């Protein structure tokens, strides 16, 4: 057990920039949540604890308290209890499978009175911590192969539980650890393979297998000619070619059987295969209308018609970016982009400078999570990605996500300060 010595730890000073970005995003979040609840002709009192914006005020207050506690405790504690925290969160998630409440089709909430907790959100920070700790220990291990298996397992276990909760969006977020792995030496070839697989999948789903096969064959021929003198490579090329073809033919099968109908609908829409603006694509369509109608400077605070009149679904949570886009326009969305960009860049930069690999691992881990949340959430509201319901960190309404992301960020600020 490391000893507690706050005065010594505080001496270097926490990263003020990160704290500023955090406060700015949380403030934007609250202002926007208030706007989504605002009723033009009725009174909308600031304190009405039946209303999300007042509840969010409590979440913000408690989050700041939580942040302060994290900054005050010894960073050794964070490292020390990483596995314990991971297991605790995993326990809660499994508990949810049995006693959880279902909200919007995902059974991922523990309800205690009027208060609901989503363990998945905490699982993300727990996984980042556990991963960092595991990788640090793995550095000195003899059998590197088992380290990789361990890392994979750390991610796979929560992903399986999350999938059992029908929360595909959160499962996807765990994929963001690939950024950490890439930074720490994951083969570029593996990444290239992933990208090729993604391209083949998109081509196959958007059109059909013929195009993918044609593309593969063209590339294969080029490689065969280039490597015509190297027998070993020729054999490898043939193997990869055949494997790729098998993969291409399995895509449609996996797609048909691996996704729920509504998920397939959302993917088909993004691929441009179907269009049903009044039916299945209503939410996406309305989301684009809300953001698109904002123009350069927006309609003005509290003046957004699309969000006020409930055309946009889930506008204080997953679709909160619509309210920002509508009321503050391109200018407002740029501000949010800049803040996130700065936040992520800052985390990466500080991680890179770190001498302590644990902090770097952790930093890359949570940077990946922020990146995933940011791009998936906003990508869905502007029609670049299929609708995947995950919150926009710090801005979306919700206690669990705000607490978890606060914890995530302030653990880093604390660790970085060490």
């Amino acid at each position, binding site marked *: 057990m490391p000893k507690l010595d706050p005065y010594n730890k505080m001496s270097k000073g926490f990263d003020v920039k990160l704290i500023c970005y955090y406060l700015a995003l949380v403030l934007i979040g609250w202002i926007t949540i208030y706007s989504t609840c605002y009723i033009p002709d009725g009174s909308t009192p600031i304190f009405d604890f039946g209303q999300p914006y007042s509840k969010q005020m409590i979440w913000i207050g408690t989050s700041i308290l939580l942040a302060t506690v994290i900054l005050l405790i010894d960073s050794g504690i964070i490292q020390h209890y990483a596995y314990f925290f991971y297991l605790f969160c995993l326990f809660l998630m499994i508990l949810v499978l049995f006693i959880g409440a279902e909200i919007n089709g995902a059974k991922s909430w523990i309800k205690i009175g009027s208060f609901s907790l989503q363990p998945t959100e905490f699982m993300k920070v727990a996984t980042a911590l556990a991963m960092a700790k595991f990788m640090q220990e793995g550095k000195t291990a003899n059998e590197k192969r088992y380290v990789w298996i361990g890392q994979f397992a750390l991610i796979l276990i929560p992903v399986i539980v999350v999938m059992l909760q029908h929360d595909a969006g959160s499962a996807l977020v765990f994929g963001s650890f690939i950024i950490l792995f890439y930074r720490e*030496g994951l083969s570029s070839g593996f990444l290239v393979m992933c990208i090729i697989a993604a391209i083949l999948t998109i081509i196959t789903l958007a059109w059909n297998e013929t195009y993918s096969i044609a593309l593969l064959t063209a590339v294969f021929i080029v490689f065969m000619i280039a490597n015509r003198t190297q027998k070993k490579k020729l054999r490898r090329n043939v193997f990869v070619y055949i494997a790729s073809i098998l993969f291409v033919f399995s895509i449609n099968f996996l797609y048909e059987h691996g996704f729920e109908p509504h998920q397939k609908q959302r993917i088909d829409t993004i691929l441009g295969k179907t269009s049903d603006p009044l039916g299945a694509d209503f939410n996406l369509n309305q989301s684009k209308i809300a953001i*698109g109608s904002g123009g350069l400077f927006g309609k003005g605070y509290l003046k957004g*018609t699309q969000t006020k009149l409930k055309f946009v679904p889930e506008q204080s949570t997953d679709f909160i970016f619509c309210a920002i886009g509508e009321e503050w326009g391109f200018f407002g969305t740029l501000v949010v982009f800049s803040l996130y960009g700065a936040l992520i860049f800052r985390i990466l930069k500080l991680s890179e400078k770190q001498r302590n690999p644990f902090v770097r691992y952790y930093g890359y881990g949570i940077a990946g999570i922020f990146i995933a949340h940011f791009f998936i959430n906003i990508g869905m509201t502007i029609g670049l990605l299929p609708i995947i319901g995950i919150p926009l960190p710090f801005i979306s309404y919700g206690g669990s996500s705000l607490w978890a992301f606060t914890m995530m960020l302030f653990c880093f600020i604390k660790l970085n300060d060490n």
Partner: protein
Amino acid sequence: MSQDNSNRYYIILAVLGILMATYTIRLFNLQVLDKSYKRKANENAIREITIHPARGFIYDRNDSLLVYNDAAYDLMVVPKEMRPFDTMELCRVLDLEIEDVRKKLDKAAKYSGSVPSLFKQQISKEDYGYLQEKMSEFPGFFVQSRTLRSYPQPIAAHILGYVSEVDEQDVENDNYYKMGDYIGKSGIEKAYESVLRGIKGKRKVLVDVHNREMGSYDNGAEDVVAVPGTSIWSTLDMQLQRYGEELMAGKRGAIVAIEPKTGEILCLISSPNYDPNLLVGTARPKNYGKLVMDPEKPLFNRALQAAYPPGSTFKLANGLIALQDHIITTSTVYSCSGGGYHIGSHVVHCHNCGGLNIYSAIQRSCNTFFCRAYYNILSNRVKYKNIDEAYTAWLDYMSSMGFLQVFNTDLPYELKGRIPTAEYFDKKYNNSWNGNTVVSMGIGQGEAAVTPLQMANMLAVIANKGYYIRPHVVRAIGHRDSLNTQFNDKIYSKIEPRHFETVLQGMKMVVTAGTGRGAQIPGIEVAGKTGTAQNPQGRDHSVFALIAPANDPQIVIFCLVENGGFGATVACPIASLMAEFYLNRKVERTDLETRMKELNIK
């Protein structure tokens, strides 16, 4: 390991940068470049509700209401805002077939996705109440109230005209109108459309995703208050109009009564007619079809659109022209003997009236006198070089009294009538014709055909001793005293005033001791002229021209009853009863009145 891979930091940053740039471009495109989302957002959240102003009322000259408005409710639909709803329920409430609903929705969607279309016209007040409560179950639908024309008395349909939904042509001609709007299609409704319609207002309201109204848009900054239509005072005398229509019941024909000093039409009757309430609202298409198919042609306005041979009433005009052209004087005597006016072997029959001057010629309606006079007008080679010139001069006189033209005031679809030109006769008779060739026009037969309105106007010229004011049907707009002055120019005929005294004197004698004794009204001196218009298709038309009181004319009446026979038998008593009713506000000759009302000539 970290040292080995630190370049990957930059790769990760680069990929992040590319992603950020992609998203920013996408947002810029969505928010700044693509303007369609602004429009779509407005279509979503802002519904523009047109406020249809109440159409102006129409009163008669004595402030009696002729046309007013009734409330009606239309069910509108915005196809884009529709969501699946309980079609059966809608069918049940509106009493429609599913097939109808589908057709209506298709039509609405074809017209426009986002602009409201009429779904069902004039739903009942009960259905309105029911639907208003359940509106949230029928997204995309809403109820719009408007007004319908209503007529307290089933009279004057032809002259009041009707309003109906605009057609594509109307919308194209005037962008004030949108499909589903109403427009005056004939009569006063058409002539004064811009006055009666008022100005549409609009209200922009916010609607939420469930199609519920959520208050006004921008605090009503863009709302426009509707301006109600302006009321109009017609020149018609409602009671006289109704009385005339009652007298004409069971007969075909027309009556036009004018106040000569003002040109105001006191009544304008075309029989058979129809109840204007038939052409209102949902019953309109069905009833209109029936009226169109009716062999009696009730939609046809005989007073303005039927050209009749005027019969002996035309002699008045020819007498005036003969006096003006010095063909005759008041002391000129023509003799009528031998059964009439002889042209070779052809005879225009008369009653051997003996020698008579213009007064007694009018009194006895002598064919011989007026044939001779007409022949002499056309044979006047002192004044005119040839027949063409003489005939054209005669036409000039006629048109100076209002013939051969439309008055172009506020009356619907007037006809010019037909009186042939000199060229027509040149051609017809191969340039070899004279006064005798066309002499039957001298007594109102033959080629001449004029409208009842033109005849009534000629009577106004006589009553005014030389001029007329173009007949019109609206006397005041907006306020009963703000007189409609656009038609009040005096138009003078080419006849000197003194000649009218002569003709009027003859007309008095018609009533006191001539062919029109039946027109006598106790206590009122009446001037008149009978006529019998030859009708090759059947029995002659009965015609009567009346001016009363003769010394200070308040009313001129031209009455024509198709197939009524002699002027004295039907048209004369009807015109006389109407004059009595108008001047005395009551009728003492009730026996005659009953007889005329019950007379059926069809």
